[in-house]
């Protein structure tokens, strides 16, 4: 027995028809019937055991039950074909050794074991990924909040600055990475020229690192590029968050004699904490998935110093034809991201304040 929607008291027509319906048969969608003049006349004035009426009723019910699926179908089909199926297939694939050319060989969990215990580069790659993630995410959050605060003061030229900080976001990463190759060049790069001149200014003879050739400095270089590229985006999210903080709170704080720091610490920070929560979660996920920066600027080198998990997936799948191992890696990466996100969500109660809850 199906019931459509709340039975509004106002809908008196509906009530009458429900009563008129025979043998307790619900006569179908009330709102629709009530609102549609074009509803089949048989419904309006049903005859007992009228075959035409019964047929239409059945068709009507059938379509009520399934029409939603029809509307979902185009989207669901795409999702099943291009997301759900590949995800499940990749899980299966992770248990096969497959080079695309010869038939896949079932190896069980061997490729997971290989990655975790014998792979010559996995530990390094995982460390690189964590290094990158925990090097960039805190900086990204702090920098973008600071920029958003600065640009939220309503000073002159704010729009111009917003454009400037947002520009990297819409710049092609490929182009940016190529330019950064030149900036980071050890001998001729503008960054090292600047650092040398800065040193000269203070009478120091400094020799800045050969960024992209050094296993120690190439990852920081990748991080700098990543921050430059993405801080603008999180800044915009923070700007939106800041706009939503009610001015009355600041006014109240001023009345109570709160200074700038107190206002920031006790009003701004708690009030934008939902934004911070979103930014932290998304930044973590994005950071774990970093690929292009290293792919274009350093090719994962030197000596694997900038090879991240996703880059390693790429290498295994498309350079070394280890499809199964790449799938296994992808699932390990999924597990890591899942665990981090899970704990983030669990811990949000401790520090994320939603205005609605406080009322």
């Amino acid at each position, binding site marked *: 027995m199906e019931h459509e929607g709340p039975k509004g008291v106002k809908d008196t027509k509906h009530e009458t028809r429900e009563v008129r319906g025979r043998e307790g048969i619900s006569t179908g969608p009330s709102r629709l019937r009530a609102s549609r003049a074009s509803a089949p006349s048989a419904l309006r004035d049903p005859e007992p055991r009228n075959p035409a009426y019964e047929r239409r009723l059945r068709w009507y019910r059938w379509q009520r039950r399934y*029409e939603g699926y029809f509307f979902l179908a185009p989207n669901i*089909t795409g999702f099943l*074909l291009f997301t759900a199926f590949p995800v499940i297939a990749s899980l299966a694939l992770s248990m096969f050794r497959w080079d695309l050319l010869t038939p896949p060989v079932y190896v069980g969990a061997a490729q997971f074991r290989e990655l975790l215990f014998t792979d010559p580069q996995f530990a390094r790659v995982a460390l690189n990924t964590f290094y990158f993630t925990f090097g960039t995410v805190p900086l990204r959050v702090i920098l973008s909040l600071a920029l958003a605060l600065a640009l939220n003061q309503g000073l002159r030229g704010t729009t111009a600055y917003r454009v400037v900080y947002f520009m990297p976001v819409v710049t092609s990463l490929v182009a940016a990475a190529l330019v950064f190759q030149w900036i980071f060049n050890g001998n001729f790069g503008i960054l090292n020229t600047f650092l040398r001149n800065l040193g000269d200014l203070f009478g120091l003879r400094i020799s800045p690192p050969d960024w992209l050739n*050094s*296993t120690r400095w190439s990852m920081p270089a990748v991080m700098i590029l990543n921050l430059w590229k993405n801080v603008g985006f999180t800044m915009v999210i923070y700007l939106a968050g800041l706009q939503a903080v009610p001015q009355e709170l600041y006014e109240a704080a001023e009345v109570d004699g709160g200074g700038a720091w107190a206002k920031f610490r006790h009003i701004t920070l708690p009030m934008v904490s939902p934004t911070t929560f979103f930014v932290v979660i998304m930044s973590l996920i994005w950071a774990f998935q970093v690929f292009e920066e290293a792919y274009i600027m350093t090719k994962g080198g*030197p*000596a694997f110093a900038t090879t991240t998990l996703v880059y390693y997936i790429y*290498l295994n799948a498309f350079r*070394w034809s280890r499809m199964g191992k790449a799938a296994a890696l992808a699932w390990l990466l999924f597990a890591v991201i899942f665990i981090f996100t899970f704990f983030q969500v669990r811990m949000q109660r401790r520090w994320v304040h939603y205005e609605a809850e406080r009322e």
Partner: protein
Amino acid sequence: MSRRYLYLLSALVIMAVIASCAPVPTAPAPEAPAAAPASAEQPAAEGAPVTLTWGFWGSPEEKASHERVAEEYMKTHPNVKFEYFFAPWDEYFTTLKTRWAGDPASIPDVLFLWPTPSYAATGVLENLQPYIEKSGYDLSDYWPYLLDSARYEGSVYGLPRDIEAHALYYNKKLFDEAGLAYPTDDWTWDDLVAAAEKLTKRDGDRVTQYALGMEGGKWALWVGQAGGIMLDDLTNPSKCTLDTPEAMKGLQFFYDLMDKGYAMRSATLGQQGGDAAVFETGQVAMIIQNSSRVPVFNANSNLDYDVAAVPVMAGGKRYDFNGGAAWVISARSDNKEAAWEFLSWLQSKGGGESMYTRNGEIFPALRSVANSDDFLASPKPANRKAFLLAAEAAQPGGFAYFPEWDELSGSIIGPQLDRLWAGEATPAEVVPELCKAVNQFLVNNGYPK
């Protein structure tokens, strides 16, 4: 009533969507030969119309060059038509492998491939040996060890188009400025170092002009000259042999060139646009590279350069590592006879080899072509014969020929040696660790088989 039509319409739309998706995995891709199934029924006899699919990678210019070669072939074989499968190097192999996995029939009849033995091992390539024996195709015209890079279990599976013959390119102007005599074909390592000392310009601790630009990946050249090699067996290895004194000597020599600032560090070279770019801009006075740079440098009228043979170790023998992608025939081809006929023309003097060579695209795999006007007639660089010296001495050693080689090279050998080229560790520190990892990798993958 109109709702019914709405359902009908949406059902039709969904079916159309599904229908348009569904055939993709099964139908031949657009590049696949439409005429192939038809011609399969009759052998490619003289005059029977055949459509050959021809696959290769490269730049748009290289594609145009291949198409000119095909047109030349069609002049004498009017029954043959060509369709092309073309992708940039980065995507070529992935696309091919995906097709092999999904729809092997859509693989081109004739294609450019590297490394041949790894593919031959999986059974996707046609064994060319019977065709060679039947047609009397002359294998002795190939450079001495070149076909070793295209053999699998004793049979030839591919015909290499070119050979990786290296020479020392030098910028005459920079040599004149330094007051140095030009390099000769009998230069030794010591001559190279002595000249490098004078050609390297410094500003404090910074190098502003390097003597040499050479990709780190070409280390096997020095190792081979010193008498070393990386693995005890290139097709079925049992252990890493980079830790032998000979191999260490070669690595140390290359390491020192970079460590003393004579040679530009490998990663820097890449970031500066590669050896051709730094040579043309005068950032380096010499590069060691194969003949592929010749057309580029000849097009630059400001560049006055010549080539010489790569310096050899005093007391050592000349060595170069060979290799070079080969033309192969797909085991799933429907036109194998026609494909072989084309292939044997492609790899012949007066055929494709001559055309590519005259274009300056390749250093030919065939000795007769290299020794003919096809290669020697061009006036620049004057000492072209230097490439012939290298080709005559070329042996395997730069690459190994088993399926997991790319992974071994990319995950262990390359990155470990990168530490040398980045100047962060010495060969004595890196190589023992490297060999341990290589040996472990071989054990894990079941070698020797």
